[in-house]
């Protein structure tokens, strides 16, 4: 099984490389933010993939962004300016935070050869106004995708994509439900692949993996392995998973913007599209799912509380502690961390804050994580 797991991970990684290669005949769209209706792009014949940050920095983006800007955004711009994203048919981003909002102007002025599809995402996710606003934005986005691709996105095609994506989401949720069975870097690879491989490929390889009754121990797991929940923004840097693994821990869940929350909830609510007179507009279905996700720190939902969700996850997965893996200069997560840490304190859940940089050094990070694990061991 372990061999089969690694073989599947290799196949997924190879599929991700093929998608991003310039010779790929299937047009690919890159997305940069944590709210994107991937299904809408997929229904138009595009393969959506997330543009993760890379530790390489050619310095080109620095001419346009101040040094204290979120380097997740900076890296995407750097990759675009250095031609690494030239194979993409376009890039999509939501108004998820100020930096991304600013990026839209910078992108259009400086990376004009890669079309940018930008749409508004309400700050407050509950209420009638948010529903109406996001629906209008999705309708506009649909038209712009159609113009880009020169085709019509039919409702039928959109329903097919929604069902496909629902299947992927269900698979990733099953991966997370068994997260403790995977070595941290394997979990990282499986979840990251869900953002970077065509969903058809992902479903094909991961379905049989999860049908097996158990993931055999990989030799690093022990009954005393500390069970960690990660909190942060994206899933780009494996260094945190690496140091947790080295310290003998397991990642049993996360509240990463691009992590477990991203795969919450089915849009269609089942495996088939609704039919008959009550058939729903697929855009409304997409909208409702996006609005029902656990909000990222830049959004607000009166009924969905991030701290409550984190505490519930800690309890559900029997986590021993929480590690905040915060990207340096990410202020929304800095503010969020204070609120979540307070909730964890009151619940008696140990937590650790580590700051990540674009090219994270494992040295000091490792000392912090290991020391945290040592505290957990003695509790």
């Amino acid at each position, binding site marked *: 099984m372990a061999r089969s797991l690694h073989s599947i991970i290799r196949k997924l990684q190879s599929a991700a490389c093929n998608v991003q290669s310039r010779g790929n005949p299937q047009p690919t769209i890159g997305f940069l933010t944590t709210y994107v209706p991937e299904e809408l792009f997929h229904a138009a014949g595009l393969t959506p993939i997330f543009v993760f940050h890379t530790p390489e920095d050619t310095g080109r983006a620095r001419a346009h962004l101040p040094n204290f800007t979120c380097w997740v955004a900076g890296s995407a711009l750097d990759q675009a300016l250095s031609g690494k994203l030239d194979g993409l048919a376009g890039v999509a981003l939501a108004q998820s935070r100020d930096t991304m909002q600013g990026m839209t102007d910078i992108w259009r002025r400086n990376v004009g050869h890669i079309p940018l599809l930008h749409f508004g995402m309400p700050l407050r996710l509950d209420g009638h106004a948010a529903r109406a606003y996001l629906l209008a934005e999705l309708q506009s986005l649909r038209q712009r995708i159609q113009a880009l691709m020169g085709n019509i996105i039919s409702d039928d095609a959109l329903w097919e994509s929604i069902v496909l994506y629902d299947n992927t989401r269900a698979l990733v949720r099953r991966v997370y439900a068994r997260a403790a069975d995977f070595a941290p870097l394997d979990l990282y690879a499986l979840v990251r692949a869900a953002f970077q491989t065509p969903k058809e490929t992902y479903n094909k390889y991961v379905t049989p993996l999860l049908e097996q009754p158990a993931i055999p121990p990989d030799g690093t797991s022990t009954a005393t392995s500390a069970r960690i929940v990660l909190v942060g923004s994206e899933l780009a840097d494996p260094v945190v998973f690496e140091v947790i693994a080295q310290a003998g821990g397991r990642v049993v869940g996360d509240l990463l913007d691009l992590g477990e929350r991203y795969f919450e909830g089915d849009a269609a609510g089942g495996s088939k599209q609704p039919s008959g007179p009550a058939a729903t507009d697929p855009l409304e279905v997409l909208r409702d799912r996006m609005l029902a996700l656990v909000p990222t720190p830049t959004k607000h939902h009166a009924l969905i509380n991030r701290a409550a969700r984190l505490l519930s996850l800690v309890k559900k997965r029997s986590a021993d502690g929480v590690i905040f893996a915060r990207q340096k200069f990410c202020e929304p997560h800095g503010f969020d961390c204070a609120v979540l840490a307070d909730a964890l304190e009151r619940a008696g859940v140990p937590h650790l804050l580590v700051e990540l940089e674009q090219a994270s050094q494992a040295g*000091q990070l490792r*000392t912090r994580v290991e*020391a945290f694990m*040592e*505290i957990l061991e003695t509790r």
Partner: protein
Amino acid sequence: MYTAGVDVGAITAKAAILSDEGLLATALILAGYDRADAALQVLNQALAQAGLSRDQVAYLVATGYGRVQVAGSDRTVTEITCHARGAHYLCPNVHTVIDIGGQDSKGIAVGTGGKVLDFVMNDKCAAGTGRFLEVMAAALEVDLANFGQFALAASRRAKISSTCTVFAESEVITHLTAGVPRKEIIAGIHKAIAARVATMVGRTTVRDEVVLTGGVAHNAGVARMLEEKLGHTIIVPKQAQLVGAIGAALIARG
């Protein structure tokens, strides 16, 4: 039974040997660029002092930034856990450890039996570390060993507003050109480092007894100004620089 702890830090490598009766021997050398060799040498020095051979040591725990480079260690443990344990051994009523080494500084809340309850560390910045003092001592042409005494001898403290090593150095030059006496500048430097460390340590709970460890603990000026900033008496054990290695040897004992 004999156990050993080796602490390979940013600037020095330390070793401690424990017997069932207590601390048997210690050694300290500069770590240099070859950490693996420094670990071997410092352990051999401590063994020689104890009159033991390597195979008489039942268990060896490695700690410090170079802990993974200690050949033949049975286990690696972070310096945070080792400093707490070592400080508790030397000062059984310790509740807070402030460790200021060459590369970083840490605040550790210590519980029963020397357990770590919480810790804070500086970010990747030389301010608030021994390196800051080294750079400043060099800029002012004062032997590092006497740097703290210069600070204590000053009746006034020059204002060093920046805690960034690079910018603080330029502030020092500004003070020198303005004719501010050297010891007043040195006192200001110590006040700046104490403020930096106190702010960081304040993120955890500071409770008596507060023990200062690491190479900078031997600087009386830093200890005094930390006392002023924190409002707690600072205890500096004689073996302040060896606390990590002693803690490692204690952990090796089980």
